[in-house]
Each structure stands twice: as C-alpha cells, then as structure tokens.
C-alpha cells in the first residue's frame, strides 16, 4: 500500500528537497567561513526537522486508514495475527524511512566527487550519524504506528504522532533537562528518566563515535514498548467495537 500510494512519492520528494536545501545551506556556510565541525555533523544536527514531518506522514495512514475504510475487517479475517499486522506495518514504514535517509547519502557522494577534498568528508561522523538515524528511527516509527493505532482519522493520527514526537524530541531534549523544578528529591526518578531521553545529546554522541549501549537500549526498549501498546490498542479496539 505504501509503495502504491502516490502520497508516498510526494512525501519522499519533499523530504529530499528539504534535505537538499539544508545540505546546500550547510555548504554555503562552509564556503563563507571555516567551521569547526565536518559537514556530516552539521547535517545530522537538522535531523529533527524531517523527523517531525516525515514520520507522521509515513505512519499516519498505516492503521487509521485500514480502520476508516473498513479493510481492517478483511485484514483480520485473513489468517494473520495482530502482531504480524503491526510488525508488518512497522517494518514497511521503517524500510521506507531508511530508504529515504540512505538516499541523502547521495549528497555526500556528490560533495566528495566534486570537491575532491577528502577532508570535507569525514567517514566516522557520517557512519555514526546514519547509525543514529537507523536506531532512533525505530523508536520514531514505532511512535507513529502507535498514534495511528489510536485514531480512526489519519489526520488525527498524524497530529498525535507529531505531538508525541515533539514532546519526546524538543521538550525532553531542550526544556526539561534545564527545568529547575525537576531537581527536587521527590522527582529524582523522573529526572533520571529525562536525562536518559535526551535525543540531541544522543545524536552528538553517535556522530562523535560514542555508541553507548544504554542509549541503544533506550531506543530499542522504547520501540518494543510502543509496538506492544500498538498491538494492544488494535486488539482492544476491535474487541469493543
């Protein structure tokens, strides 16, 4: 369904267009003044922008649309389990998400080909950056699938997904770590949790080559949890419908 639908290609085009502009923007700033970080590091700093838009676009339809058109009924009367359906939807969306990100690798190839300067293309941060995208993508897509399992309307699913990602990435990553009210002893467990969920910090570590198993575990366990909730949500809905 994902590959048949024209909206997928529109989303892919827009994604590559936006990322292309980001990349040219970075290169322009390099041409004007020397910078400390390699272009790869700068490029992945902008990961949150496409994530916030692409993930809802890719995942909002997956379960909500089935429910709205009623095809969920034919789907679940075929010999498949809910787990298989949810994992299938997740896998498809994740596959497409990663394909799009891998396509941005072409930017770096073009840069290397035409600049002829190997210093501009630092392989370490590049691989670290893509590894971060791959691992965090699991969690983001799982959140999208979860949002889609809640709603019947795909716009609602998309907005819900956007809101959840916004909370996770920006509120968790920017505001809460600095919030002083979290420093009291009573809220200590919460503070620890917030400290783990600093996605911008994770990205920095990954691009620097520090792959911490705690961070991997954070994404993997988050993914598993979101998928389990999606399965439960789908099952609960058709039991009580």
């Amino acid at each position, binding site marked *: *369904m994902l590959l*048949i*639908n*024209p909206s997928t290609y529109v989303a892919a085009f827009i994604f590559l267009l936006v990322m292309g502009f980001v990349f040219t923007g970075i290169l322009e700033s390099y041409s004007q003044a020397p910078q400390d970080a390699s272009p790869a590091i700068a490029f992945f700093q902008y990961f949150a922008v496409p994530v916030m838009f692409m993930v809802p676009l890719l995942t909002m339809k997956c379960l909500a649309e089935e429910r709205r*058109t*009623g*095809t969920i*009924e*034919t*789907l*679940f*009367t*075929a*010999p*498949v*389990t809910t787990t298989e359906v949810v994992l299938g939807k997740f896998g498809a969306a994740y596959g497409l998400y990663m394909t799009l990100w891998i396509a941005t690798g072409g930017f770096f190839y073009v840069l290397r080909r035409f600049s002829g300067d190997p210093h501009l293309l630092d392989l370490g941060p590049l691989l670290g950056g893509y590894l971060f995208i791959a691992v965090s993508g699991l969690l983001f897509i799982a959140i999208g699938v979860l949002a889609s399992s809640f709603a019947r309307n795909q716009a609602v699913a998309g907005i819900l997904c956007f809101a959840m990602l916004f909370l996770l990435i920006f509120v968790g990553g920017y505001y809460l770590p600095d919030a002083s009210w979290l420093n009291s002893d009573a809220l200590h467990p919460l503070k620890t949790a917030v400290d783990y969920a600093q996605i911008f910090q994770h990205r920095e570590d990954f691009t620097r080559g520090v792959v911490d198993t705690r961070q991997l575990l954070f994404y993997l366990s988050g993914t598993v949890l979101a998928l389990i909730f999606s399965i439960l949500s789908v099952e609960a809905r*058709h*039991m*009580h*419908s």
Partner: protein
Amino acid sequence: MPAPLPPAIEVSRLVKSYAGMTAVDDISFTVARGEVLGFLGPNGAGKSTTMRILTGYLPATSGSVSICGYPVATQPDEIKRRVGYMPENNPLPGDMRVSEYLYFRGRLKEVHRRKLGPRLDEVLELCDLKRVRHSIIGRLSKGYRQRVGIAEAILAEPPVIIMDEPTIGLDPHQILIVRDLFAGLRGRMTVIISSHILAEIEVTCDRVLILNRGRVVAQGAPAALRREILGLTTYRLEIAGDAARLTALLVAFDPMLRVARQEEPDADGFRKVTLTTERAEELGEPLLRALLSQNLRVRALSRAQPTLEDLFLAATRRSWDTVDKK
C-alpha cells in the same frame, strides 16, 4: 467407517452484548456442508454481528461457535483459513489495481505463489472481471467492486463463505450475475448470505433464518416457512353483484372461508374482495362455479402466493408480540 464430518457451521446459544445492549440473544443453528443459508432480518437484527462472530473478527459474549469442527474462540487461525468473508459495504483499498489486490489477498490467505496465478485467472473469469483486472479499484463501478469482493472471498477456495449483503446497491442485471455466481457455488461451498432483500434470499438460499432483535424468529426452507408462519391461503376476487348474497354463498360454500377485506365498488360496479382460508387445497375452480351459479359477475379470481415479504413481516411482527408480552 470414517467418523461423519462435523457440520460446516454449528452455533449454539450464541450471545453478544455491547455495552448495555444485546445485539445477539441466544441464537442456535447448524448449517450442513454445501448448504446455502440466508440471514434475513431488519436493520439492527444482529445479522452482521453474528457473521462477524462466525469469522472470528468479534469475540462472543457467551455461547459457542464452531466451523468445520474447529471452535472459533480457541482456534481462530484454523477458522480464518476456512472462511472467506465479505464484510458489509465491501471495503476495498481504493488505490490498488484489481489483480494486485487479489494477488495480495491470496498471498495473505496462504495460497501458494505457484498456484495463485492460475487461481487468479480462474476467479477473474468466474466473476467476469477479466476486463478490469488492471483497473484501479477506486475507479470501478459499484457492480464491479462488489464482484471484486466476491472474488476475494472465494479466492482461497474456503469451505465456508460468509457474505454480508452481497447484492446491496447492485442493479437488477448485476444481481442476476451475482445470483448465477452463487448458484455455481452451491453444493461445493457452504455459503451464508445476509440480506434484507427478500426475493434475493428466496431464489438463492436452501434455507432461511429470520432474525429479529437478536433472536431467531423462524427458520426453514422458504416454502415450508410460508406454510408454517402464514398458515392461510388468500384468494383475491373482483366481483359485481349483491354483497349480502356473496356472504350467504360463502357460508354455504365453506364455513372456513372468511372475507378479510372488502373494497367499495368502482365505476363499473366491481369490488375487490380478499378471502382467506386455512385450507391448503386449491379452491379456485369450485369457488368460481359457485359464484357463477349465483349469478354474481366475476372479473378476476386469483390465488395469492404469499411472498417472502409477507412472511418476513408476519415473522418479525410475531416476535415483537412475544417481546412485548414479556
């Protein structure tokens, strides 16, 4: 001697209640292999709910359902392999092509890749879909979409097929095609169809189950049901002459014959009279002789076949009466 095969569908004391409302209330029935059963009932009678429980899509509140000997509650996977289901309103993905959709569904239903190609051609042929196999489903007319749904249901050659209102929204010509399709399936597959189009059920089904307010109010072959529920035979007369003489004649002719309704005479002096009797045998000819011997002018005499419609109304009214008495 091998053990006899279990019936295709066995439902006993099935109850389904939603929050505060009972949709299906203690339904029991069995369907033999190869039988075509029709569910008949007004909207909200519990037809769709019963079908959804049969397919394993909805869990039942209590009671048991088994298909080909497998209980639905504990072995949903076995059930899903044995049932082809077309839901109400026939949901289809609008942006896939017919052949793509059927291929996808076939793979989902565990039809082997090598067998699927020939089977697909066979089903497309059977449902007369060859011309549109590469069309996008969303652009097809309702009749085609309905046939895509039917093709999908019979694709994996399941022993049991359940279709919720398969002929709704079709024009008479398309209904005929769909009806022929069912006739072709008869004997090979067990089929349950629901409808509130009565003529439809009458032609296609071996047996009818009339549901109302979640209960089975009548079941049997359409002809047997007629006798059982209506019990009366109706004659329609168009007659001119003295009304008093007619009444006297009827009493003399057969005391069981009653005048159910009498209309005012029209411009030519003819009245329409409806007579009912509990006798099953044909009274037309002797009645006509008796009327003519009394010099009553008869323009028309016919024995009215009670339609399934009358039957349906009578059966559902009967169940309302019983419900109200409680």
